[in-house]
């Protein structure tokens, strides 16, 4: 599954990242590339550091897993 390594790395590092909750972390495989103030800053840094074609995780640092809620009946397509 895509991002499997990155998500494991995120959860392994989460206790240390939580003092920067609300900021955005970029992770590639087992490496934490950096923590940034905004989502756009995180993307810019990631494309510069890793290139445009590499899989990496960008996630807002938070204690809970991110959740999305939809009241409309939709059929999620979880992978393209």
């Amino acid at each position, binding site marked *: 599954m895509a991002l499997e390594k990155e998500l494991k790395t995120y959860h392994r590092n989460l206790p240390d990242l939580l003092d920067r909750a609300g900021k955005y972390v970029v992770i590639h495989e087992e490496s934490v590339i950096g923590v940034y103030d905004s989502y756009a800053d995180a993307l810019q840094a990631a*494309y510069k550091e890793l290139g445009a*074609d590499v899989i990496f995780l960008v996630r807002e640092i938070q204690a809970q897993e991110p959740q999305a809620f*939809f009241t409309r009946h939709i059929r999620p397509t*979880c992978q393209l």
Partner: protein
Amino acid sequence: MPTITLPLTPDGPVLKLGVAVDLPLSQALRSQNRPVPNPVAATLLIDTGASHTNIDSRILSQLPLQPRNQVEVHTPSTNGVPVYCNQYSVALIGLPLILVPAILVTGASFQGQNIDGLLGRDVLGGCVLTYNGPGKHFILSY
């Protein structure tokens, strides 16, 4: 804030937008003299019942997108047990200005619903929305 006024359609308050690769990616591609994919046209329903923006996977699959995050998705049919879905980073463009330069969206099938996605509260959180039912229009400032 730019403001647009649009008629309410039988499908509700909908926006015709372009879905594109996020702005930082298009800038990175340009700096490498690589082609930037054209935006894909999409009709999105403004939905305050959607916490996040969600776009038909037929639209998303036309762009060279990599998964950038994963989120637990709850719908009326998931009965409290979330499904884990990838999120993809896109830009939403086509109003007088870029609406959102970079946002994480999930994919879904909207087949038969006459729309290509939902514009959720992640975008609306930065907007002022006036829904004028009697006047049969809505106003969006962003």
